[in-house]
């Protein structure tokens, strides 16, 4: 696989950022977009725009087909059993809120427990937190170990008869730990507990097979998969989508509306109220095609090579402390630089065109556990090269000079 050629597909790298070539190491936050995706948004609005699923005119029918084509592509890409198990949302956050809200309404009662982990992004904690008040549920946290992992054992330790649902990340956006989802699901199912997987970081970097993972829910963020913003995917087993109540009410999700009562639409319409992010959904099909063209195995291999190279280089740098050391790790490295706050590091790197993230990465629970208020984070995408890592390291050395540190 030729990274130079792949990188050429991303127009953002043709432009200078503050007179520098862009070294983009913030893909865990959001990935850059290939030209095909950008063009698809433009073309749809220019030549094909219409709302979907309502009118009978030519453009409406064509747009509906394009919209549904993406659903079919996603189903195939994640190997879901049924096309109607794919629900479009505005992002992974909405996907998780949808489940926390509807599952909470129907299946959680006072004293029930939701088990999540200390690695979770705020988006897989806050939606459950809402239920603490409305349902008086408790939230338990499976502990992270010193390597920044959550093991099957730490999950098992927190499961009890009150545990009604488990929410876990596929790949930590801070330590990069890849969780043993299949084992967690199998353990949970043996106790009759459904599992929701936050797949924000997993989906762009790992092979996805819903039937093999057997999880009940899987939340995906489109913009992290080289797709447009404003689109996410909720994968949910059909039995759950049929069982759970609707999330939002409005046009498109109904079957019949009378003054005396309302019946709801069939799947997947039941969960897609109002006009959806049509252009983004249609353009997201190009992101899937882009990923399929390269092949997820090749992407995994490339990112693993980058990760190993970056770890090797950064570990040689005495002033850098890498957060966590998981046995199975994706292309995310969080670190601190001795004597310099992560925000200062990020500002200095930015001057060289090196874009990283600094802060708590929406994981305050984990940072508190680590005893850190903030970390710096470099994360990789398919377009990154070893040169990018070298430039990161050079820039990190510059930080020390600016701060007069040895």
């Amino acid at each position: 696989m030729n990274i130079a050629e792949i990188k050429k597909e991303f127009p953002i790298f043709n432009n200078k950022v503050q007179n520098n070539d862009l070294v983009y190491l913030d893909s865990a936050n959001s990935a850059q977009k290939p030209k095909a995706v950008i063009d698809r948004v433009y073309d749809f609005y220019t030549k094909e725009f219409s709302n979907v699923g309502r009118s009978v005119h030519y453009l409406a029918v064509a747009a509906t087909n394009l919209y549904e084509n993406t659903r079919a592509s996603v189903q195939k890409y994640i190997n879901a059993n049924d096309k109607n198990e794919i629900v479009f949302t505005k992002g992974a956050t909405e996907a998780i809120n949808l489940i926390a809200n509807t599952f909470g309404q129907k299946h959680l009662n006072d004293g029930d427990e939701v088990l999540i982990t200390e690695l979770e992004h705020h988006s897989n904690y806050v939606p459950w937190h809402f239920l603490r008040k409305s349902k008086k549920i408790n939230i338990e946290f499976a502990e992270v170990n010193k390597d920044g992992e959550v093991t099957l054992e730490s999950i098992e330790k927190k499961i009890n008869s009150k545990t009604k649902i488990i929410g876990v990340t596929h790949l930590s956006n801070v330590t990069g730990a890849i969780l043993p989802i299949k084992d967690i699901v199998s353990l949970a199912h043996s106790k009759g507990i459904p599992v929701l997987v936050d797949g924000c970081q997993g989906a762009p970097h790992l092979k996805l097979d819903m039937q093999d993972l057997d999880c009940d829910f899987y939340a995906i963020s489109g913009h992290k998969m080289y797709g447009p913003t404003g689109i996410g995917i909720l994968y949910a087993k059909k039995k759950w989508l049929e069982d759970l109540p609707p999330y939002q009410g409005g046009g498109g999700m109904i079957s019949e509306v009378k003054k005396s009562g309302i019946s709801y639409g069939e799947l997947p319409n039941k969960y897609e109220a109002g006009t959806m992010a049509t252009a983004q959904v249609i353009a997201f099909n190009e992101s899937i095609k882009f990923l399929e063209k390269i092949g997820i195995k090749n992407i995994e291999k490339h990112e693993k090579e980058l990760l190993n190279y970056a770890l090797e280089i950064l570990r040689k740098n005495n002033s850098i402390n890498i957060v966590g050391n998981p046995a199975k790790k994706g292309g995310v490295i969080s670190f601190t630089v001795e004597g310099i706050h992560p925000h200062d590091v990020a500002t200095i790197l930015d001057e060289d065109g090196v874009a990283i993230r600094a802060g708590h990465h929406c994981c305050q629970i984990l940072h508190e556990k680590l005893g850190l208020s903030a970390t710096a984070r470099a994360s990789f995408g398919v377009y990154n090269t070893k040169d990018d890592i070298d430039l990161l390291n050079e820039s990190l050395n510059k930080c020390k000079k600016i701060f007069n540190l040895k």
Partner: protein
Amino acid sequence: MNLKELYQEIILDHGKNPRNLRKTENFNKDAKGNNPLCGDKVHIYLKLNENKKVEDISFEGQGCAISMASASIMTDLVKGKEEFEVKEIVSDFLDMIKEKDELNNDILHDDEKTKLMCLSGVKNYPMRVKCATLSWHTLTSAINNSQEEINTESN
């Protein structure tokens, strides 16, 4: 060039060895500030005497070089000032960081103004302005005794 303006010696010095980083005994006003985007936190303690003069001011917290230096310089400059003077210095500083080229108050001496102007480098870094202003907004909250935690993301 910009980076050198941002990270001047005085900022690095105050960032590394912040003055008044402690808790005032018998403080009579205090307030907490929080920047949820980056997790920076500051707690300002103020002791005003019966003539409404700042007898002591201190802070606890953690943050980047800019936010620590800003809190450090601020506490140094307002110590010994009267409450109304502190308010004027705060508002002058915030105006300068937002839009004005210089400080206009008649309270600070020229050398004090020069020290404070070292923070003006953040103007070129809009994302970092909040780092510089957090402790100042928190001081205002402490003076007003509003008991409201300053949050850089709420308006």
